[in-house]
């Protein structure tokens, strides 16, 4: 079930109605849990059992670990839970990838691929469960004794299939509060949802029409068209994922829950390190807290820090999918982070970082960061390594194909996106003014803006809407 379908609208309306009928938080939590399973079952009924199992071992082993007297036993439960989560993820997501590559290494001509349907969002609910177990093991959170609450933490439908990645420390306490639907939350949540839907259906889905066609055979298109595709995909993946995140946050907000912010205008970043503080924040902070820091972070010298960053980014790339293209994407970002770190240290050693940066330097930093991030999306989007090479070759003058295609909706969306970023950069007050308060809804600006937003959504949504990109992860 995707957020931008009529089915979801009906599902959510029925859920709200039922929540209104049920008195008391325990009943409402049960209803939310059942609704979450129904939401997932709409895609695949049999895989609901998988989410249930994640909940079961997360909750059961978590409690067992917490209650264990002997440290070795505690560690055993911890490792068992992590192994179950990662093992399940590895089986569903990486079995064929590993098999193919081992077969290639051993010189076996063909690998008999296992027929596995990848459960939607498995990477997300694996990380939810692991964050709880790790935090519990570290003593950062207390145990969740109520199974309904824990199962709901794992399966909470707004963020179930594409995040934001939840932390037990921020979400479980919310389940201890009364579940209440309030008018201010409803208004704010609806606005966030509409904003996300606009990003997804008006921007990302229209951009995908152009991007998908070019990526199908990049060798046919002229360098100009390929450069436009680079820009278009950068914006598509941002609008697709940030749009989904906003819809998830909005849906949760309507239900009275607060989900973490996942994006903060990442293309305004002036360095690759800043980019990762603004892009998919819930993943980058997860990787930082549960991978980079346990590896040693920056506590063991410069070389070890660089290695830790590289490992984190490589695994972060691989988290997105079982393909060398994702590994390459992660490696590129790891390399860029390493270069940026060295550059920052060099500047620091000369005392240059203490001076306020000149506008020219900041502009150049922003341009280089944006160019790098945009070009790094090429292997991320390409269906194969060969396509990546063809695409990169085609970017140079006189080396691409002859078809020249400057897709009008893409150009309009990119102009709108630039305007939106410029507004956010130079006039954030105006952007901050846009969410209308519940008391302002009967005023002209709110009524017209919301009315036209809904109308544009209905009028311009492409009929063959593409699924959310991050569902596959």
């Amino acid at each position, binding site marked *: 079930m995707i957020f931008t*379908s*009529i*089915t979801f609208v*009906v599902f959510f309306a029925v859920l709200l109605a039922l929540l209104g009928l049920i008195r008391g938080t325990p009943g409402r939590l049960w209803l939310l849990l059942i609704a979450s399973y129904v939401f997932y079952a*709409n895609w695949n*009924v049999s895989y609901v059992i998988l989410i249930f199992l994640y909940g079961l071992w997360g909750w059961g082993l978590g409690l067992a670990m917490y209650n264990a007297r002997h440290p070795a036993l505690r560690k055993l439960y911890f490792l068992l839970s992590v192994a179950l989560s990662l093992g399940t993820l590895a089986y569903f997501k990486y079995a064929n990838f590993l098999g193919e590559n081992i077969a290639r290494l051993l010189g076996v001509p063909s690998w008999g691929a296992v027929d596995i349907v990848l459960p939607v969002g498995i990477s997300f609910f694996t990380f939810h469960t692991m964050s709880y177990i790790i935090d519990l093991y570290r003593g950062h959170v207390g145990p969740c004794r109520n199974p309904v609450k824990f199962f709901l933490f794992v399966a909470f439908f707004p963020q179930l299939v594409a995040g934001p990645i939840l932390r037990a420390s921020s979400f479980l306490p919310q389940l201890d509060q009364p579940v209440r639907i309030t008018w201010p939350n409803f208004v704010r949540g609806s606005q966030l949802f509409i904003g996300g839907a606009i990003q997804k259906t008006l921007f990302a889905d229209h951009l995908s*029409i152009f991007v998908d*066609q070019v990526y199908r*055979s990049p*060798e*046919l298109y002229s360098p100009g068209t390929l450069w436009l595709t680079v820009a278009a995909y950068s914006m598509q993946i941002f609008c697709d994922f940030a749009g989904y995140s906003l819809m998830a946050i909005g849906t949760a907000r309507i239900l009275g829950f607060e989900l973490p912010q996942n994006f903060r205008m990442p293309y305004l970043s002036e360095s690759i390190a800043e980019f990762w503080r603004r892009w998919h924040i819930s993943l980058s902070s997860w990787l930082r807290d549960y991978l980079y820091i346990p590896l040693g972070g920056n506590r063991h010298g410069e070389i070890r820090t660089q290695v830790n960053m590289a490992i984190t980014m490589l695994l972060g790339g691989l988290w997105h999918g079982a393909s060398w293209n994702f590994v390459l994407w992660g490696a590129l970002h790891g390399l860029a982070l390493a270069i940026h770190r060295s550059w920052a240290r060099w500047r620091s050693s000369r005392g240059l970082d203490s001076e306020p940066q000149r506008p020219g330097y900041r502009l150049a930093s922003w341009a280089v960061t944006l160019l790098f991030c945009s070009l790094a999306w090429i292997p991320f989007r390409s269906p194969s390594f060969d396509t990546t090479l063809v695409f990169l070759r085609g970017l140079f003058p006189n080396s691409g*194909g*002859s*078809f*020249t*295609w*400057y*897709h*009008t*909706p893409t150009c309009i969306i990119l102009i709108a996106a630039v305007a939106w970023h410029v507004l956010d950069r130079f006039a954030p007050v105006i952007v901050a003014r846009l969410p209308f308060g519940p008391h302002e809804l*009967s005023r*002209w600006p709110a*009524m*017209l803006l919301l*009315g*036209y937003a809904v*109308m544009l959504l*209905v*009028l311009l*949504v492409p*009929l063959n809407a593409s699924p959310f990109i991050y569902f596959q992860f």
Partner: protein
Amino acid sequence: MQPSDTSRLSGSTANAFGDRARTIARIVVALFVILGGGELLVRSFIGGPSAQVYDPGIGYSYLPGGEMFQAKEGFARLRLNALGMNDEDIGPKNGRCRVLVIGDSYTAALQVPREQNFTSVAETLDRRLDVLNAGRDGLFLGDLHKVRARLAPQVQADLVVYVISQRAVEADIRLPDFSVMVDPETGVVKDALMRVEEKEELKQTFAPLLRNSALATRLASQLQPSVVGAQQELGAWRNRFSPNPAPAASRGPAAVASASNEDILSFMFRRLAQDSPTALLYINALQYKPGRRAFVGPSSGAAEVVARRAAARAGVRFYATSEYLIESVERTGQPPYGFGNALLPGGHLNAAGHRAVGAALAALVRDMSPALASECGGR
């Protein structure tokens, strides 16, 4: 309570009532402003009001004298003639060879200005031709003969050309609404009928609204698939929990399965070739390689072979457009399909594609002229 308090209370009630009335009035006005703005927006950038008229024979036809605008794929503002065709009003032949072209959206050519479509191009290439465009988007292969029966006597065509594509010869004859009657003993196709879809009747119900409002037309086309999709999904859920789940919908009538595509096509082509000289013009789908090279896609080529064999059995002349389309790619470096605001390549013929097909049509008439009336160069 003091009297003064009572008056204050009634005053505040009146104020609250006034506030509510003002809010309602504001919402109503805002609704009108939003709908009015939406109508303008759609008319300027998306498409015009519906120019379709319910037609019990073929689902719908175009409104005689109607106006069309679309910017979804290409950009065109068109005025239909008195017969509801994307063409000029029909005048006397004046010694010209009159060719009636019937087909689906490739023929209707709603994506390009009229002077750029292939029927106009053919007229420009050969001034002795008077080519009439009787295309209608979504017209099924099984309905082409109905259009001919209606128009041919009125326009006195010397030649009728049916434009067909891979979709027509492969997908159309497998549609659930298409039924083929086969003689159980001989296996010979006896009849082939296309049932008008139920949704077309709705167009009659909502005709006054759709014909006057571009916004309503757009909303109807946008919401229909979502509503159908939601209905199917709800049905699937019902089925999932039903003790007696319904079997999966059958794909087309059983009779179709017993006749080969070639048999069915041959029957339909024979039906098309009654009365006046007839030809089939096949629009090939291309695939591309770098360096301005194009070739006929394997599936399009395979469909062409079947259609060509069926045409030979039916005794109808068959012409393909591949060499003209490929030559266009080599010459222009651009595909003959697709538009800057839609897909490229993909979708319908663009101006370059229409030039190529127009040349193919002119060549077709030249090739057939010995068999045609004197106006067309025949004896």
